[in-house]
Protein backbone atom coordinates (compact mmCIF):
# COMPACT_ATOMS: atom_id res chain seq x y z
CA UNK A 1 0.00 0.00 0.00
CA UNK A 2 3.06 2.21 -0.03
CA UNK A 3 2.99 3.41 -3.65
CA UNK A 4 0.36 3.90 -6.37
CA UNK A 5 0.83 0.51 -7.96
CA UNK A 6 0.37 -1.39 -4.71
CA UNK A 7 -2.81 0.49 -3.90
CA UNK A 8 -4.33 -0.03 -7.36
CA UNK A 9 -3.42 -3.71 -7.17
CA UNK A 10 -5.02 -4.08 -3.75
CA UNK A 11 -8.28 -2.31 -4.67
CA UNK A 12 -8.61 -4.19 -7.98
CA UNK A 13 -8.04 -7.61 -6.44
CA UNK A 14 -10.66 -6.91 -3.80
CA UNK A 15 -13.09 -5.72 -6.50
CA UNK A 16 -12.59 -8.97 -8.44
CA UNK A 17 -13.18 -11.00 -5.27
CA UNK A 18 -16.45 -9.20 -4.58
CA UNK A 19 -17.52 -9.63 -8.23
CA UNK A 20 -16.93 -13.37 -7.93
CA UNK A 21 -18.97 -13.57 -4.71
CA UNK A 22 -21.83 -11.60 -6.31
CA UNK A 23 -21.93 -13.92 -9.34
CA UNK A 24 -21.89 -16.91 -6.97
CA UNK A 25 -24.89 -15.41 -5.18
CA UNK A 26 -26.67 -14.95 -8.52
CA UNK A 27 -26.03 -18.59 -9.45
CA UNK A 28 -27.28 -19.93 -6.15
CA UNK A 29 -30.36 -17.68 -6.23
CA UNK A 30 -31.61 -19.67 -9.24
CA UNK A 31 -31.27 -22.92 -7.33
CA UNK A 32 -32.73 -21.59 -4.09
CA UNK A 33 -35.66 -19.76 -5.71
CA UNK A 34 -36.62 -21.74 -8.84
CA UNK A 35 -39.37 -20.18 -10.93
CA UNK A 36 -42.25 -21.96 -12.56
CA UNK A 37 -45.05 -21.02 -14.90
CA UNK A 38 -48.16 -19.60 -13.30
CA UNK A 39 -50.37 -21.88 -15.32
CA UNK A 40 -49.76 -25.07 -17.17
CA UNK A 41 -49.20 -24.46 -20.90
CA UNK A 42 -52.13 -25.47 -23.05
CA UNK A 43 -51.07 -27.88 -25.76
CA UNK A 44 -53.59 -29.40 -28.12
CA UNK A 45 -53.48 -31.56 -31.19
CA UNK A 46 -55.48 -34.47 -32.55
CA UNK A 47 -55.47 -37.12 -35.22
CA UNK A 48 -57.29 -34.98 -37.77
CA UNK A 49 -54.77 -32.16 -37.44
CA UNK A 50 -51.95 -34.53 -38.29
CA UNK A 51 -51.33 -34.74 -42.01
CA UNK A 52 -49.40 -37.20 -44.08
CA UNK A 53 -47.65 -35.52 -46.99
CA UNK A 54 -45.82 -37.93 -49.27
CA UNK A 55 -43.44 -39.72 -46.91
CA UNK A 56 -43.70 -37.16 -44.12
CA UNK A 57 -46.07 -36.93 -41.21
CA UNK A 58 -46.63 -33.30 -40.22
CA UNK A 59 -48.09 -32.64 -36.78
CA UNK A 60 -50.17 -29.47 -36.44
CA UNK A 61 -50.74 -28.24 -32.91
CA UNK A 62 -52.04 -25.40 -30.72
CA UNK A 63 -49.92 -23.99 -27.93
CA UNK A 64 -50.77 -21.27 -25.47
CA UNK A 65 -48.54 -20.27 -22.58
CA UNK A 66 -47.25 -17.12 -20.93
CA UNK A 67 -43.52 -17.63 -20.53
CA UNK A 68 -42.96 -14.10 -19.21
CA UNK A 69 -43.29 -15.49 -15.68
CA UNK A 70 -40.11 -17.54 -16.06
CA UNK A 71 -37.83 -14.58 -16.72
CA UNK A 72 -35.89 -13.37 -13.73
CA UNK A 73 -32.49 -11.68 -13.36
CA UNK A 74 -30.63 -14.89 -14.15
CA UNK A 75 -32.48 -15.80 -17.36
CA UNK A 76 -31.00 -14.45 -20.56
CA UNK A 77 -33.23 -16.43 -22.88
CA UNK A 78 -35.52 -19.43 -22.87
CA UNK A 79 -35.44 -22.34 -25.23
CA UNK A 80 -38.89 -23.88 -25.50
CA UNK A 81 -39.53 -27.05 -27.43
CA UNK A 82 -42.18 -29.65 -28.13
CA UNK A 83 -41.29 -33.29 -27.85
CA UNK A 84 -43.01 -36.06 -29.79
CA UNK A 85 -42.84 -39.49 -28.24
CA UNK A 86 -43.94 -42.60 -30.02
CA UNK A 87 -43.35 -46.31 -30.22
CA UNK A 88 -42.38 -47.52 -33.64
CA UNK A 89 -44.00 -50.71 -34.86
CA UNK A 90 -40.60 -52.42 -34.68
CA UNK A 91 -40.51 -51.68 -30.95
CA UNK A 92 -38.10 -48.73 -30.92
CA UNK A 93 -39.08 -45.91 -28.58
CA UNK A 94 -38.51 -42.51 -30.18
CA UNK A 95 -38.27 -39.16 -28.39
CA UNK A 96 -38.05 -36.44 -30.99
CA UNK A 97 -38.12 -32.66 -30.97
CA UNK A 98 -40.64 -31.40 -33.51
CA UNK A 99 -40.81 -27.67 -32.75
CA UNK A 100 -38.69 -25.09 -30.94
CA UNK A 101 -38.45 -21.41 -30.32
CA UNK A 102 -36.05 -19.04 -28.56
CA UNK A 103 -37.61 -16.42 -26.30
CA UNK A 104 -35.46 -13.46 -25.34
CA UNK A 105 -35.74 -11.39 -22.20
CA UNK A 106 -37.42 -8.05 -22.79
CA UNK A 107 -39.06 -9.22 -25.97
CA UNK A 108 -42.71 -8.36 -26.34
CA UNK A 109 -43.86 -11.72 -27.72
CA UNK A 110 -43.06 -13.98 -24.81
CA UNK A 111 -46.70 -14.86 -24.60
CA UNK A 112 -46.84 -17.78 -26.99
CA UNK A 113 -50.21 -18.20 -28.68
CA UNK A 114 -50.13 -20.58 -31.61
CA UNK A 115 -53.15 -21.91 -33.46
CA UNK A 116 -52.91 -24.86 -35.83
CA UNK A 117 -49.19 -24.43 -36.45
CA UNK A 118 -47.20 -27.06 -38.37
CA UNK A 119 -44.25 -28.60 -36.60
CA UNK A 120 -40.85 -27.45 -37.82
CA UNK A 121 -39.46 -30.95 -38.01
CA UNK A 122 -41.39 -33.80 -39.58
CA UNK A 123 -41.78 -37.41 -38.62
CA UNK A 124 -40.45 -39.08 -41.71
CA UNK A 125 -40.15 -42.75 -40.90
CA UNK A 126 -43.31 -43.74 -42.70
CA UNK A 127 -42.77 -47.45 -42.59
CA UNK A 128 -42.89 -47.74 -38.82
CA UNK A 129 -45.25 -44.91 -37.94
CA UNK A 130 -48.53 -46.68 -38.57
CA UNK A 131 -51.00 -47.45 -35.79
CA UNK A 132 -48.91 -45.93 -33.03
CA UNK A 133 -49.83 -43.38 -30.40
CA UNK A 134 -48.15 -40.00 -30.47
CA UNK A 135 -47.50 -38.13 -27.22
CA UNK A 136 -46.70 -34.42 -27.41
CA UNK A 137 -45.21 -32.50 -24.48
CA UNK A 138 -43.84 -29.00 -23.88
CA UNK A 139 -40.47 -28.46 -22.22
CA UNK A 140 -38.22 -25.50 -21.66
CA UNK A 141 -34.61 -24.78 -20.74
CA UNK A 142 -33.44 -21.48 -19.30
CA UNK A 143 -30.14 -20.08 -20.53
CA UNK A 144 -28.75 -18.15 -17.55
CA UNK A 145 -26.57 -15.07 -17.18
CA UNK A 146 -24.34 -17.10 -14.87
CA UNK A 147 -24.57 -20.70 -13.81
CA UNK A 148 -25.73 -23.95 -15.32
CA UNK A 149 -28.36 -24.55 -17.97
CA UNK A 150 -31.37 -25.22 -15.86
CA UNK A 151 -34.01 -27.58 -17.30
CA UNK A 152 -37.50 -26.92 -16.01
CA UNK A 153 -39.98 -29.75 -16.10
CA UNK A 154 -42.43 -28.79 -13.41
CA UNK A 155 -45.62 -27.78 -15.16
CA UNK A 156 -45.53 -29.74 -18.35
CA UNK A 157 -48.51 -30.45 -20.48
CA UNK A 158 -48.97 -33.69 -22.33
CA UNK A 159 -51.38 -34.89 -24.93
CA UNK A 160 -51.67 -38.34 -26.51
CA UNK A 161 -53.54 -39.26 -29.66
CA UNK A 162 -53.22 -41.99 -32.33
CA UNK A 163 -51.44 -41.24 -35.56
CA UNK A 164 -53.67 -41.40 -38.64
CA UNK A 165 -53.79 -44.56 -40.68
CA UNK A 166 -54.18 -44.39 -44.43
CA UNK A 167 -53.63 -46.60 -47.42
CA UNK A 168 -49.85 -46.36 -47.15
CA UNK A 169 -50.10 -48.24 -43.90
CA UNK A 170 -51.93 -51.22 -45.30
CA UNK A 171 -49.51 -51.49 -48.20
Amino acid sequence: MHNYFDRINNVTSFFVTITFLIILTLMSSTIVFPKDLDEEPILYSNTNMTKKIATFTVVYFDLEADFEALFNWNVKQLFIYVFAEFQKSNGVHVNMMIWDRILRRGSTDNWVNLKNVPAKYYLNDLKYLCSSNLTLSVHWISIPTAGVFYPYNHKESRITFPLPNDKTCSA
Partner: protein
Amino acid sequence: MFNIQTHMDFEGQNRAEKISRAIITFFGFAGLIWGAIIQQFSQTIYILAAGFVLALLITIPPYPLYRRKPLNWQKSKNQNSEGGESSKKNKQK
Protein backbone atom coordinates in the same frame (compact mmCIF):
# COMPACT_ATOMS: atom_id res chain seq x y z
CA MET B 1 12.64 18.04 -10.77
CA PHE B 2 9.11 17.54 -9.45
CA ASN B 3 9.05 16.53 -5.85
CA ILE B 4 5.67 14.78 -5.85
CA GLN B 5 5.16 12.53 -2.88
CA THR B 6 3.36 9.24 -3.63
CA HIS B 7 3.62 7.46 -0.32
CA MET B 8 1.24 7.30 2.63
CA ASP B 9 2.33 6.82 6.19
CA PHE B 10 1.57 3.53 7.95
CA GLU B 11 -1.62 4.75 9.63
CA GLY B 12 -2.75 6.17 6.28
CA GLN B 13 -2.13 2.89 4.46
CA ASN B 14 -4.23 1.05 7.01
CA ARG B 15 -7.00 3.59 6.71
CA ALA B 16 -6.90 3.59 2.88
CA GLU B 17 -7.21 -0.18 2.76
CA LYS B 18 -10.10 -0.21 5.23
CA ILE B 19 -11.93 2.56 3.35
CA SER B 20 -11.51 0.92 -0.07
CA ARG B 21 -12.80 -2.44 1.20
CA ALA B 22 -15.73 -0.81 2.97
CA ILE B 23 -16.73 1.12 -0.19
CA ILE B 24 -16.54 -1.88 -2.54
CA THR B 25 -18.34 -4.18 -0.09
CA PHE B 26 -21.09 -1.63 0.50
CA PHE B 27 -21.64 -0.95 -3.21
CA GLY B 28 -21.58 -4.65 -4.02
CA PHE B 29 -24.16 -5.40 -1.35
CA ALA B 30 -26.35 -2.46 -2.34
CA GLY B 31 -26.09 -3.46 -6.00
CA LEU B 32 -27.06 -7.03 -5.19
CA ILE B 33 -30.15 -5.90 -3.30
CA TRP B 34 -31.16 -3.34 -5.93
CA GLY B 35 -30.60 -5.84 -8.74
CA ALA B 36 -32.69 -8.41 -6.93
CA ILE B 37 -35.50 -5.89 -6.45
CA ILE B 38 -35.70 -4.81 -10.09
CA GLN B 39 -34.48 -8.23 -11.38
CA GLN B 40 -31.71 -6.75 -13.53
CA PHE B 41 -28.27 -8.19 -12.91
CA SER B 42 -26.59 -5.60 -15.15
CA GLN B 43 -27.59 -2.90 -12.62
CA THR B 44 -25.76 -4.87 -9.90
CA ILE B 45 -22.59 -4.89 -11.96
CA TYR B 46 -22.89 -1.17 -12.80
CA ILE B 47 -23.32 -0.25 -9.14
CA LEU B 48 -20.36 -2.43 -8.17
CA ALA B 49 -18.26 -0.81 -10.92
CA ALA B 50 -19.26 2.65 -9.63
CA GLY B 51 -18.08 1.59 -6.16
CA PHE B 52 -14.80 0.39 -7.65
CA VAL B 53 -14.18 3.72 -9.39
CA LEU B 54 -15.10 5.62 -6.22
CA ALA B 55 -12.72 3.46 -4.17
CA LEU B 56 -9.95 4.15 -6.67
CA LEU B 57 -10.57 7.91 -6.56
CA ILE B 58 -10.77 8.03 -2.78
CA THR B 59 -7.94 5.73 -1.74
CA ILE B 60 -5.32 5.85 -4.52
CA PRO B 61 -4.06 9.47 -4.38
CA PRO B 62 -2.06 10.20 -1.22
CA TYR B 63 -4.40 12.82 0.24
CA PRO B 64 -3.32 14.66 3.39
CA LEU B 65 -5.89 12.49 5.18
CA TYR B 66 -3.51 9.56 4.81
CA ARG B 67 -0.39 11.47 5.80
CA ARG B 68 -1.25 12.81 9.20
CA LYS B 69 1.17 10.69 11.21
CA PRO B 70 4.51 10.76 9.43
CA LEU B 71 7.28 8.72 10.97
CA ASN B 72 9.69 10.79 13.02
CA TRP B 73 12.98 9.79 11.55
CA GLN B 74 16.10 10.36 13.49
CA LYS B 75 18.03 13.32 12.18
CA SER B 76 20.76 12.28 9.84
CA LYS B 77 24.27 12.51 11.20
CA ASN B 78 27.04 14.11 9.24
CA GLN B 79 28.48 11.54 6.92
CA ASN B 80 31.99 13.08 6.77
CA SER B 81 35.04 11.50 8.37
CA GLU B 82 34.64 13.31 11.68
CA GLY B 83 31.13 12.07 12.11
CA GLY B 84 32.27 8.53 11.37
CA GLU B 85 34.89 8.75 13.99
CA SER B 86 32.50 10.18 16.53
CA SER B 87 30.05 7.32 15.96
CA LYS B 88 32.84 4.82 16.46
CA LYS B 89 33.73 6.55 19.65
CA ASN B 90 30.12 6.39 20.76
CA LYS B 91 30.04 2.66 20.12
CA GLN B 92 33.19 2.12 22.05
CA LYS B 93 31.80 4.02 24.98
